[in-house]
């Protein structure tokens, strides 16, 4: 008969607590990375939906890619987004040196450039809406709005997170908790570049190829 063993979670010692990768920062960044990959599965399903609905029958006689997609405008957004990521990279270089001023300058640059991306995207979508090209118009437009604006919503959240981190860097300093949050935000911010590669390539560029 097996003997029941009681373990107190408050005092329990992990199997290998001395293992070199079991530190707080690495554990939390890996956990957040896995969360980002699960988020990317939602993006995958949105891409799959867009692929299916990107067909002339799903435009319901309304606007298609030729009317909706502006790849040159999207490229200027791409420049701003990649610049925002580069600015965050500068913040990481500042963090590496333990220099709060460079960290804040990099975060500020990422904030401005990311905001610029949202302005370009927002202006493009506002023009579509003013011309009656709204999500309710057709299945194609629903898929287009959902996919592109899902990415845009991430950028909005990222900008809010940057503001919070700027406040924490100023008032708390580069403590372990602030550092792991900056690293998680780095993963989040860089990941938006990843997602945008596919939005730009397979929605804007491929849409322009098929639409003309």
């Amino acid at each position: 008969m097996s003997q029941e063993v009681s373990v107190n979670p408050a005092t329990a010692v992990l199997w290998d607590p001395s293992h070199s990768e079991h530190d707080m920062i690495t554990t939390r960044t890996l956990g957040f990375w896995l969360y980002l990959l699960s988020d990317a599965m939602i993006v995958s399903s949105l891409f799959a939906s867009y692929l299916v609905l990107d067909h002339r029958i799903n435009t319901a006689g309304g606007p298609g890619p030729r009317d909706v997609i502006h790849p040159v405008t999207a490229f200027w957004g791409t420049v701003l987004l990649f610049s925002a990521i580069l600015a965050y990279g500068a913040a990481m270089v500042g963090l590496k040196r333990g220099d709060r001023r460079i960290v804040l300058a990099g975060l500020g640059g990422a904030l401005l450039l990311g905001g610029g991306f949202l302005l370009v995207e927002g202006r493009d979508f506002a023009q579509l809406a003013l011309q009656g090209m709204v999500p309710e118009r057709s299945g194609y437009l629903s898929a287009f709005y959902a996919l592109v604006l899902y990415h845009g919503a991430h950028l909005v959240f990222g900008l809010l997170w940057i503001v919070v981190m700027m406040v924490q860097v100023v008032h708390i300093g580069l403590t372990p908790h602030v550092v792991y949050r900056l690293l998680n935000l780095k993963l989040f911010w860089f990941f938006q570049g990843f997602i945008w590669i596919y939005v730009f390539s397979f929605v804007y560029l491929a849409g322009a190829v098929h639409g003309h």
Partner: protein
Amino acid sequence: MVTKGRDAWQHPQVQLARGGQYVGAYIVSLLLTGGPLWLVVRHGGTPWRLMIIIVACAAALTLVQAYFWPRLDLSRTQRWMTAALVLFIPLVVMTVGLTAWMFATLYARTMIPVLLHAPAFGY
């Protein structure tokens, strides 16, 4: 690994930052998005040829950004993140690929005359 005290920025994941590599990745990323855009806008090839270029540039961009920005490699610091990403890729391919496969002949099977000979995707 250092996680305590006032020197948390000495953590290996922080020390991965490389300004020169970030700038290099930035320039290459703009070239790999601007190049296909230029070809598409100028109608520089058949649709199939343009799509191959777009896919190839997207794949190259993925590798460039994965390595030079979040620095995903096989180092002791990053290998589990890299492993998670590698294991994630088949899930994406299956999600998008199986959906495309399921719907590839949908419109031909609807028996709507004008759609019987429509392409599986696109226009």
